[in-house]
């Protein structure tokens, strides 16, 4: 099985990861209302330096993945300890995404079944996806990325008659103090989550002489995903107006307005499949990253066993993650973004500082 990916596939993978964050949009609306697009814009711009940080670290560690970077930045023992912290973070992230997706299925698709059913089913599918390894992600990402753009354009065309520009106004009428948390939400979910791409970075074929290897691919993928999210947000705000901030899943509910020639309406179910597929893809990536770290930490245990244990941990954590959709929402718009800052910004910055000191000291 081919265990390396090309820079182009890596770019598509980054884009797909961001594209799969459609369910997080309700958090942006909750905090920023119709200014959500602006907070995403600012959050995205603020994330850009982190791309160069990861790429610089990749260059310093001679093309190693996250575990290699941590070892280079913090030393072997501290690096292992921090790797364990990242494992906890990735499992938490996967559980959070799985719970989000299961909640969505439970609210909009399988309405009257216990939430355990979608969690277990989705968990199983993601386990299967992650077991297929990096070659599967590498193959599927470009197809998915393009497919989702086509679907977005197709759907936006049908929603075009319902677009009202007035819903964008007034633009950003809040104080800077009130804007920090709203910006922090898109910054950490999904952009900051791209820290998990450092696990993939070790699998990409790169030139060893480059000071910032892979930055072009990372940036391209980021821009592709970023514009997708921005387009979806703007479309939803322009169609839903004040309802964007009170609907559970605006990116999905907006499809209720699409009508093809006033004959074919309520086409949400047609979009269920691609919607679920990208959610699955994102969780599978997170699960795969967790398994990779598991393999690094518990090198003596068999891969198959580790895969099962990780999937089980994620599924159980997803089940106990929150008691309801409101509890999940409250967590996501209050302390989760703050907690995520540690593995997404805090540790990488320390890692780079450590790496640069080490390089200077030789």
């Amino acid at each position, binding site marked *: 099985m081919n265990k390396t990916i090309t820079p182009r596939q890596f770019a598509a993978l980054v884009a797909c990861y961001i594209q799969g964050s459609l369910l997080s949009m309700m958090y942006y609306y909750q905090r920023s209302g119709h200014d959500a697009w602006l907070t995403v814009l600012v959050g995205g711009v603020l994330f850009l330096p982190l791309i160069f940080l990861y790429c610089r670290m990749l260059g310093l560690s001679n093309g190693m993945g996250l575990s290699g970077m941590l070892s280079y930045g913090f030393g072997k023992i501290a690096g292992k300890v921090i790797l364990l912290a990242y494992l906890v973070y990735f499992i938490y992230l996967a559980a959070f995404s799985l719970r989000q997706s299961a909640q969505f*299925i439970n609210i909009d698709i*399988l309405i009257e079944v216990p939430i355990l059913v979608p969690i277990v*089913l989705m968990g199983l599918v993601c386990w299967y996806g992650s077991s297929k390894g990096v070659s599967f992600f590498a*193959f599927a990402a470009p197809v998915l990325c393009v497919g989702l753009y086509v679907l977005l354009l197709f759907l936006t065309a049908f929603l075009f008659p319902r677009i009202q520009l007035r819903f964008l106004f007034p633009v950003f009428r809040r104080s800077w103090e009130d804007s920090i948390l709203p910006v922090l939400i898109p910054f950490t979910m999904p952009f900051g989550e791209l820290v998990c791409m450092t696990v993939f970075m070790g699998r990409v074929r790169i030139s060893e002489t480059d000071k910032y290897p892979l930055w072009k691919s990372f940036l391209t993928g980021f821009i592709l995903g970023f514009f997708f999210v921005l387009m979806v947000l703007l479309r939803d705000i322009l169609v839903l*107006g004040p309802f964007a901030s*009170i609907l559970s899943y605006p990116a999905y509910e907006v499809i209720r*307005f699409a009508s093809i020639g006033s004959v074919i*309406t309520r086409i949400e179910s047609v979009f269920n499949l691609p919607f679920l*597929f990208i959610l699955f893809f994102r969780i599978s990536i997170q699960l795969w990253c967790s398994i990779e770290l598991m393999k690094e930490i518990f090198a003596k245990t068999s891969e198959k066993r580790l895969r099962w244990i990780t999937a089980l941990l994620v599924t159980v954590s997803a089940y106990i993650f929150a008691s309801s959709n409101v509890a999940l929402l409250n967590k996501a718009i209050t302390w989760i973004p703050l907690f995520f800052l540690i593995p997404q910004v805090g540790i990488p910055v320390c890692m780079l500082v450590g790496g640069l000191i080490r390089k200077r000291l030789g």
Partner: protein
Amino acid sequence: MKNGCKRILLLFILCAVCATFSGCMPEHSKRELNSIAIVMGLGLDRATEENRIPFETGKLHVTAQVVRTGSFPGGGSKNSGAAGAADAMYWNLEMAGDDIFPLLRGSVKQSNRNLYISHNQVIVFGEALARDGLAPFMDYFFREREMRYNVLLAVSEKPAKDLLHISPGLEILPAQEIAKLLKIQAQNAEAPTISLFDFAVDMKSAQKAAVIPLINARSSGEETETVYVDGCAVFRDWKMVGKLNGTQTRGYLWMAGDIQSTVFTVPVKDARFSLTVTGKKGKMTVDFDPAKGYEGLSVSFRISADAVVGHIDGTFDLHQKDGLEAIQQACGSFIASEICDAIDQSRKLDSDIFGVSEYLSRYAPEIWEGVQGEWERYFTGITYKVSVKANVRRTGSLVDPVLKESAQYE
């Protein structure tokens, strides 16, 4: 590549199973066609002594018009009929209670199928209930997954329950008849076509007042009643506060929405011109004179309309100098007078139907912050300027009138 395709296909199938796996649905939540009662129209009234249902109490009276699928041609029955007859095409379920959700769910006390409102086409509110306020129902309508956001709304001067009992003239079901009647209003513009979503968005926009078309039943002579649409009900803070008649409604629509087409007659010199007029949504600007303070708010409406001559009663030489100009001027004045009439009525009702408050809150938020607290006071002091640009684009199949002199009716 081939293996990759297989994998993607397999995962797609797994996801599909995940999404559509309905075998684990419990018996009570199954939605088979023969286990649901398809609702085509809902009527909501204030419960009164006249519409009291035996053994049921509460302030709300709901009528759900359900299709009798078995009575449709091919469904086992030969003809249509009125509600109540065993082989009627529809069945009007009536319920009374305090809250809409328990009421609709409780319909299983009299119907052996659950109500299914995904295909509901129209919601009719009785005027008495509309005056009490529609806010209590909106949350349910938007929270309920089955409800369509583009379902049409109407306010009936008669109890809504009565309108859903009127035998349709052209359609099979009364609810269908009402829904189609509401939709076609765009071609006459004396009543708006308002969906649930449009109404709720207007109500959630600053201090804007919303409108819902008015429907009523009328009968000529001994003939059976028919449903009739004219004018609209005005809502402020989710409560009906008054009405606009047909021409005032058109005055409002010149500004508020695209007028697909409407017909009116204007006198020009010795002739009477009936014109088919179309108009794009008008443009509003708000001017603020800092010297006068917030009392000096003035609103300008700019409308452009295209007219087609449909009928000339009388003699008029279209070739004469300023001939078309005179028609255009008369047309513009007529439209302006209708808008002024609507402005007067909105002032009387103290309701911002044109959305000045929304305009300020969106495009001039600093002014809006100043007037928001005492909006009602400032609203009545607003001065309006209306400018209409009408253009005659065509004269139909004729250029000159058929008659040399005006035809007199006796």
